[in-house]
């Protein structure tokens, strides 16, 4: 149901060093740390201005904090939470100048949050690369109560804020960094299709 090409989603790629950039900001979470380490060592060859913002929060349990710190590739910040890393990214970009490139590696929710910050600084598609690693679980925005539901892996979810049964749509909002969740049993309360796990 509703599995389509999602045009509104960010484009994911494998991180590659952009030799045209002068300053390079890398941010990631969990298993994304491996991708950051790989691209950072390539960037280091031509640009000594590297800033890495990493969060150890991980679904898979992978932690690359030590490897990133030991690599001595530029300045490395480690955060225990996602919100901490996103705030760290915000502070970093506030001090950056034109000529900067941003590299993001992590879950879709993490990428979405990082891109919200990038958009606030008017970073364009040719200044940002994103690599999706780890979980495909969705952040779902309840269009009724405006609550966010993290780590949704099923076609339906009961909104953790207002309790409505939501259908998880493929409509992705970059502005909200979320998929839209829409009440599914408004006409006939309790009439629900079977729950399926779709986004692992």
């Amino acid at each position, binding site marked *: 149901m509703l599995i389509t090409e999602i045009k509104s989603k960010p484009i994911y790629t494998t991180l590659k060093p952009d030799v*045209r*950039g*002068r*300053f390079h900001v890398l941010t990631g979470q969990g298993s994304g740390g491996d991708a950051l380490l790989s691209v950072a060592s390539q960037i280091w060859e031509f640009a000594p201005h590297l800033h890495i913002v990493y969060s150890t929060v991980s679904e898979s349990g992978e932690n690359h904090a030590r490897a990133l710190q030991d690599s001595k590739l530029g300045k490395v910040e480690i955060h225990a939470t996602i919100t901490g890393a996103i705030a760290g990214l915000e502070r970093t*970009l506030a001090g*950056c*100048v*034109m*000529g*900067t*490139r941003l590299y993001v590696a992590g879950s879709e929710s993490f990428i979405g949050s990082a891109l919200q910050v990038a*958009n606030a*600084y*008017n*970073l*364009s*598609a*040719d*200044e940002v690369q994103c690599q999706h690693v780890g979980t495909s679980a969705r952040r779902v925005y309840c269009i009724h109560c405006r609550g966010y539901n993290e780590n949704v892996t099923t076609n339906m979810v009961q909104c953790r804020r207002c309790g409505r049964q939501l259908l998880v749509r493929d409509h992705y909002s970059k502005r909200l960094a979320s998929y839209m969740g829409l009440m599914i049993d408004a006409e006939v309360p309790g009439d629900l299709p079977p729950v399926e796990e779709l986004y692992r």
Partner: protein
Amino acid sequence: MRQAETIPVKVTRVEQLTPLIKEFRLSRRNGDLLPAFSGGCHVVVVMPGAKRAIRNPYSLMSSPYELDTYRIAVRRMEQSRGGSVFMHDQVKPGTELDIAYPVNLFPLSKFARQHILIAGGVGITPFVGMIHDLHHGAVPFELHYAVAGREHATIGEKLKREDGDVVNIYDASAGERMNFTKILSDRPLGTHVYTCGPAGMIEEVAETARYLGWADSHIHWEQFSAPPVGEPFDVYLAHSKIEVHVPAELSLLEAIEVAGVNAPYQCRGGVCGTCETDVIECDGEILHNDHYLSHEDKISGKKIMPCISRARCRRLVLDR
């Protein structure tokens, strides 16, 4: 695509702004308001030349918030195909002209956090319109304007009186030169640069920005080229089934129009892409003069922009 519709206008005022630039004010002949536009827009002015209509694009300098009058500025170009000389010598208050609807090929980025405007000579004109728009926003901007001498700086001096320190005028006759590296270095994320002026200036700004690591999406320019005079050649229009001769002093688009074929166009300066035409056959070389087609398209020999480009060949067949 339909032939661009035109608006009948009347010249209400002509003012000599600098030794080479005249400003013209245009209003609708029936007194109605003109179409809304945004800073960076241009209009194509249709002039009734002696042998044929001349169509030249000019940026709108007036405020997008005042639609009873459009203002354009025209620099006199002696060595050209006659449009600017016609405007300077023939057009007086009361002259009736036609203009195409305004088109914006040089818009301000709506999400920018800072704008840097760089102009040379008559290239100041699109920025005058843009600055009217910028006054209504909170995004900071700077203008850097190079002129040949103080007597050429009238437009910039008026802006400086209104906007103060954000307007910087560089007088070449006094040895003042812009330092693009200094202007573009250490700018906050989200800065956009816009250049309008001589080709060398546009290129140097873009090169400096790229050298400093700027991504292309933040580098903007506008340059209307005039169609160059070239060797005459013949073209066969496969769709209309007619043979057209392109004389030395007419562009391919103009020759097609003289032959009575309606071809799409908008900027007539090799920028917008509206006139793009497929080449079916060419036994020689296409002389691309546009800023629109990609390098790959140009070397493929399969596309041509008739408003500005020509061919050196015995037989050219176009899908038109």
